[in-house]
């Protein structure tokens, strides 16, 4: 073969990329955001449809309620976004909420300082997340199995504490976390309200976004999702990061437990059954690939709101039996997953 020292030619790095090449690059860069954009469009579409068909959707109290009622789901979805971005899964979050809320309510009613009780609730999440992370990272257990184990553990612990609804004392300071703060005082009940829980959710979403896009930790999360082996060989701190995301997911489940319990005012060992799946659905609808590496926190928020709004619309319709909610959720999920498959196939095709 001949080896020359002439400058590289062709599509090699010596020449400026052609316009077509650059367009292609931009397009495929956008393609990864497309499912998220689609989720946003569907959300807007649902609002428009709801407003046209049932009315009273685009108004302060409906939208505030949407946020208030789904803030715990949004928080869970942020945690699961981290996990799913690495190609993992966390099935334990629903059970973590149950254990954390029951424990928190009982501690509070036993006379603990509310701050201490809340702290314990959050820490329960962190510790259970840590257990999952250690199982996955240091014992090589599949995330599905490891978090399934933590799920059973947390659910069992919750049941050991109590099997009946535990009511939070009426004078408990924890209830104040659900205080409705009026921001805009509309006519009659049409007020824009916000709760500390909603504020927590918003802060967590913003933090989640910043961590993922503005820290090396976040970039490592994406890198692991792209290829864990590559990330390791690149010298990135893969073990610490993987451990970290399960701790984050658990901690956020603990915070979600606080937000939910304060709103409901009671806790039970059967709270949160299936919420992990709702959160996973929210993440997937929001455009995060279950195989990892692609997705956005903001997409997961939209995903959670799509699910929440769907419930609102079904209630408003009145004609749809509530039992059908899960079928519709499943349908939406299916549409999104198929959309992602099609996009993935298109991407492969454009790469030739």
């Amino acid at each position, binding site marked *: *073969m*001949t*080896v*020359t*020292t*002439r*400058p*590289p*030619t*062709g*599509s*090699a*790095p*010596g*020449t*400026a*990329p052609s316009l077509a*090449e*650059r367009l*292609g*690059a*931009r397009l*495929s*860069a956008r393609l*990864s955001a497309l499912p998220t954009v689609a989720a946003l469009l569907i959300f807007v579409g649902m609002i428009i449809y709801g407003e046209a068909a049932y009315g009273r959707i685009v108004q302060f109290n409906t939208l505030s309620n949407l946020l208030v009622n789904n803030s715990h789901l949004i928080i869970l979805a942020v945690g699961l976004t981290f996990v799913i971005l690495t190609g993992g899964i966390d099935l334990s979050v629903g059970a973590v909420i149950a254990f954390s809320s029951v424990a928190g309510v009982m501690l509070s009613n036993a006379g603990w300082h509310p701050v201490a009780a809340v702290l314990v609730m959050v820490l329960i999440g962190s510790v259970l997340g840590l257990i999952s992370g250690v199982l996955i990272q240091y014992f090589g257990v599949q995330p599905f199995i490891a978090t399934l184990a933590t799920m059973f553990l947390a659910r069992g612990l919750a049941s050991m504490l109590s099997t009946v609804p535990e009511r939070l004392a009426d004078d408990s300071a924890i209830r104040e976390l659900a205080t409705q703060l009026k921001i805009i005082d509309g006519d009659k009940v049409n007020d824009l309200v916000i709760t500390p829980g909603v504020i927590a959710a918003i802060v967590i979403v913003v933090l989640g976004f*910043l961590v993922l*896009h*503005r*820290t*090396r930790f976040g*970039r*490592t999360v*994406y*890198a692991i*999702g*792209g*290829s864990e*082996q*590559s*990330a*390791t*060989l*690149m*010298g*990135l701190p893969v073990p610490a990061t993987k451990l970290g995301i399960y701790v984050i997911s658990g901690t956020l489940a603990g915070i979600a437990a606080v937000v939910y319990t304060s709103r409901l005012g009671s806790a039970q060992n059967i709270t949160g059954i299936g919420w992990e799946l709702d959160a996973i659905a929210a993440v997937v609808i929001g455009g995060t690939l279950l195989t990892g*590496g*692609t997705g956005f926190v903001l997409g997961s928020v939209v995903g959670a709101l799509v699910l929440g709004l769907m419930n609102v619309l079904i209630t408003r319709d009145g004609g749809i039996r509530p039992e059908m909610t899960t079928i519709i959720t499943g349908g939406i999920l299916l549409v999104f997953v198929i959309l992602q498959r099609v996009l993935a196939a298109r*991407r492969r095709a*454009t*790469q030739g």
Partner: protein
Amino acid sequence: MTGAPPIVEMTGISISFPGVKALDAVDFRLFPGEVHTLMGENGAGKSTLIKALTGVYKIDEGQILVAGEERRFGGTADAQAAGIATVYQEVNLCSNLSIGENVMLGHEVRGPFGINWKATHRAAADVLATLGLEQLDLRRPLATLSLAIQQLVAISRAMVTKPKVLILDEPTSSLDANEVANLFTVIRRLRDQGVAILFVTHFLDQVYAISDRITVLRNGGFVGEYPTRELDRTTLISKMIGKDFATLRSLGSERQSHHYEPRGEPLLKAEDLGRKGSSEPTDLELHQGEVLGLAGLLGSGRTELARLLYGADKPDSGTVWLRGKKTDIHNPTAALAHRIAFSSENRRDEGIIRDLTVRENLVLAVQAKRGWFRPLSRKEQDALVRKYLTELNVRPADPERPIKFLSGGNQQKVLLGRWLATEPDLLILDEPTRGIDVGAKAEIQAAVAALAAKGVAVVFISSELEEVVRLSDRIIVMKDHRKLAELENGPHVTAETIVAVIADEGDDEEGDSE
């Protein structure tokens, strides 16, 4: 390479794995501003030595000096901190991220508000510029780039930490000549900037094109260190395999003098066999005891044609006659039942099952052919395995070792054994010698020749034209997914003949009669 002291000096390095001494008192030196090639057969200890230097393996004995200081690496991070960066054979980047993100992963420039993307991209652009790659669009997703450019991005990434030592582990194994030239331009640039480069490859041409010095390893032992210009190819190869080069030569001449005259009815005859988009309609005949070579550049449609013969893809035109009878080979199971076997070019993904043992890998196809309800007894398995491990000289000849611990050449031998065990009449080998060393190559070639002598028809696909010429009785030259010509092999046919056929055809198309 003046009188400067070596940047890396490894002396008396020994590493043992359970049952194997992978490295035995190996010395290795690397000077700033040189390209140093590590040569040896697969299993000679090249990868182990590299992994010792990059901190993946801990050394049992010996000493590693980096810039005059003794180092004990506890992991890859230690080696990186000592200024040793590595680019591996398989591009280890994240295809979901952009070029800029990949280059800077783990080294992003941070400001008070977290990562400062503007500064990060600027830093990435600087690194690319020092390698002469300033034209790459940093925001382009890695997945849209060719493997060759990804390789260059991987090197750029390695250079971010401004390492003193850059290890390139077989970076050229999947690049074409042009891309290799680009890569070499970059390597020379880095060398001139004073980086010490350790280069591993199987391609002798490349060794002589780029390297200043060569260290040869054999069976985990140190053979010697030589300036490239003082070591001719024949000597180099004999040092690597530890036996006379004539052994290799004789195999070649033997095959070339042998010229098979097809007699009687062909074993397989295809007319107009084709599939839209992958293979133009092609005629071909294949006789018992004949080696049919498929020659052509990468992507010329060789594999696609083979897949049609094997039923892995469904043809949409043409007819196939097998032993004179019209036959429809609609899937690989049917092909196997008709005694047609196909060994894929993609050894890692479509060939071996990494976590299974040599024995389990070897008996897979026989078992599949028999059907899973009639399991092979352990005794039958052992007999089969013993037979093929000996016949093909698989090393180590340990049937219970997971196949992932074998070198590429030996994995390939096990795969060959897998298909031989099904006693095929027609064996299709797609790139059976890619990425394996000279010794194993010679053994596989010898096995193919022996098969043909036993009456098996072999379709042999390889990018190495010399190899095709050496082994084949007839050669089908392919280009752009169609058959260009069919050559009867003989002493007059050489690799250049095939190149000429491919090149001439191109001229005709352009109407250039010169």
